[in-house]
């Protein structure tokens, strides 16, 4: 079947006409499947939050805070910019932002893949717990603050305080890092890291990048135990 031909399960919403509550309630239907299109989000907050179904959701326009928040299973594409906390606490699935993302993109997310094709602002990947995040451009300050697990790829530059108080997240940055946060250090790119990064770049659609042009950052693990010598 032509992929552009609507199928019986496909749904279409227009936030200029349909209320956010109606849209999200429909997206929480237990038998949800197929594809969903949401037009005219006009910066609305909490669009397509709490999804837990193997559906494809296309949001055509800019969204406000927490778009695709706590996503499970769904493949969500935002054809625009995203406000604070896009894909926050995502568990699985994929969220792609075609434009830029505001602060706290992918915050605390446990799983899945978040791709921001443009830039991501401050605190991208804050307290991330297993998600993979790929940012096409630059990231702001305090990115990967207290990041616990997962991988973060930055194709551009990183702002001040990258990876402050980081735990076990692995960060790959191609460009300049303004400064590293407490306990975050550059680490060698071994073969397994090049392979891992190549896989992440491919998944995000940036397979032409040379993984060896990236630098890996992670925890020095000097803050894992409180001592009088800890420097904060």
């Amino acid at each position, binding site marked *: 079947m032509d992929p552009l031909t609507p199928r019986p399960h496909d749904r279409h919403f227009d936030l200029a006409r349909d209320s*956010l*509550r109606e849209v*999200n*309630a429909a997206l*929480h239907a237990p038998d949800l499947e197929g594809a969903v299109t949401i037009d005219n989000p006009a910066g609305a*907050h*909490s669009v397509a*939050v*709490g999804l*837990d179904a193997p559906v494809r959701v296309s949001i055509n326009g800019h969204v*406000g*805070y*927490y778009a695709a*928040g*706590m996503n*499970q299973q769904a493949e969500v594409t935002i054809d625009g910019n995203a406000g*604070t*906390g896009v894909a*926050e*606490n995502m*568990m699985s699935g994929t969220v792609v932002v075609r434009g830029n993302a505001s*602060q*706290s993109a992918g*915050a*605390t997310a*446990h799983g899945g893949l978040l791709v921001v094709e443009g830039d991501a602002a401050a*605190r991208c990947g*804050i*307290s991330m*717990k*297993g998600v993979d995040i790929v940012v096409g451009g630059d990231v702001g300050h305090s990115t990967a*603050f*207290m990041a*616990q*697990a997962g991988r973060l790829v930055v194709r551009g530059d990183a702002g001040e305080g990258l990876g402050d*108080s980081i*735990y*076990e997240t692995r960060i790959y940055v191609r460009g300049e890092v303004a400064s590293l946060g407490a306990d975050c250090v550059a680490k060698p790119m071994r073969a397994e890291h090049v392979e891992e990064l190549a896989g992440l770049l491919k998944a995000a659609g940036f397979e032409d990048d040379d993984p060896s042009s990236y630098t890996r950052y992670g925890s020095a693990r000097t803050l*894992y*135990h*409180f*001592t*009088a010598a800890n420097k904060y």
Partner: protein
Amino acid sequence: MTTQTSSQNWGLRESATFDRTTIAAIQRAADTGIYDIRGWGAKRPLPHFDDLLFLGASMSRYPLEGYRERCGTDVVLGDRHATYPLHLATPVTIAGMSFGALSGRAKEALGRGASEVGTSTTTGDGGMTLEERGQSKHLVYQYLPSRYGMNPDDLRKADAIEVVLGQGAKPGGGGMLLGQKISERVAGMRTLPQGIDQRSASRHPDWTGPDDLAIKINELREITDWEKPIYVKVGATRTYYDVKLACHSGADVVVVDGMQGGTAATQEVFIEHVGIPTLAAIPQAVQALQELGLHRKVQLIVSGGIRNGADVAKAMALGADAVAIGSAALIALGDNDPRYAAEYEAIGSAAGFYDDFQDGRDPAGITTQDPELAARFDPVEGGRRLANFLRVLTMEAQTIARACGKAHLQHLEPEDLVALTIEAAAMARVPLAGTSWIPGQPGQQGL
């Protein structure tokens, strides 16, 4: 940590400024070079519910018959926006305490005890355990800055959601759980390496300030289809403003935790020097709700130093809709039990003084992740003891309410109270006993 005030030799005079506890603290700091971390809440003397008394009925008021006439105790929490508010049989709820700080068995016991008397229990920083969910009829799911173990499946399993901004023991502070308690299971739930000293963030990662919180609360409602009450919990500091802002942000219930509220692990200096007493916080919260026209519409839960039915009744007379207990609940389970006296002494403490919850060596098996210690604690017996305690608190509060002529605990009012000290009168905004003087209130002069 003990404070002894007597001496056989009256020629020895202990300094009030440099008493033995202070001297020991200085010596400990000099020995170790790091601040003291402990559990429990503020231990210093504070104006508290003990400084208030009820005016029982006599000629001008008509009491209810103590053993025969009905005195209701139920409370509905979160009916402002939620499809399914909580309807509890008693206004005494169980405060949030984490799995990690407490053993899984202790969390199970809290659920058992609370459910037996028809009240709610609350998760904590570290996620929801099967033990607790399984045994809790009404379970409040805390949504904390760390988001440890936070996931939408558990969010949907909860009966209410509590957005935690802070707690009374450490308003403005994040949490900590020391490595000895980061067992394999705790580490797995929190996505952290086993055995490290874990920090919990003090700020939420994806919102800042009340305008953002309104959007966050809306997201939580959308994810859960507007079914569940949303609480906002604050540590008591600028309570008047915090409660107003929580209401503006859309909270269904506001939880105010005074500085006597407990913690599993915080710096001693933080516990004793940051925050305000529960007594001082309640009238601020009630004033904020009244000015917004939301008193009794947005429910107020008060915690921090609730120990008996009189405290319950006093908090409710000052305007709370419900209370929450934490330290008292742990004591009811068996914390600081004298039968472990020798073991408390062996770890440098004593029954009645033990507050090193961060160490994980709790002889009672409650604040530990050590499998052998945790196995000492029987969750069924612990649950039974907690249920007993909750029943006593409820009956004691009813006893006082009936004496004040009230057919429901929520009918208690500030007019039923007087204060024993000027400080308590000023904080609680009730008259000094025997006068009509409320310090700080314009137009109130002593008789």
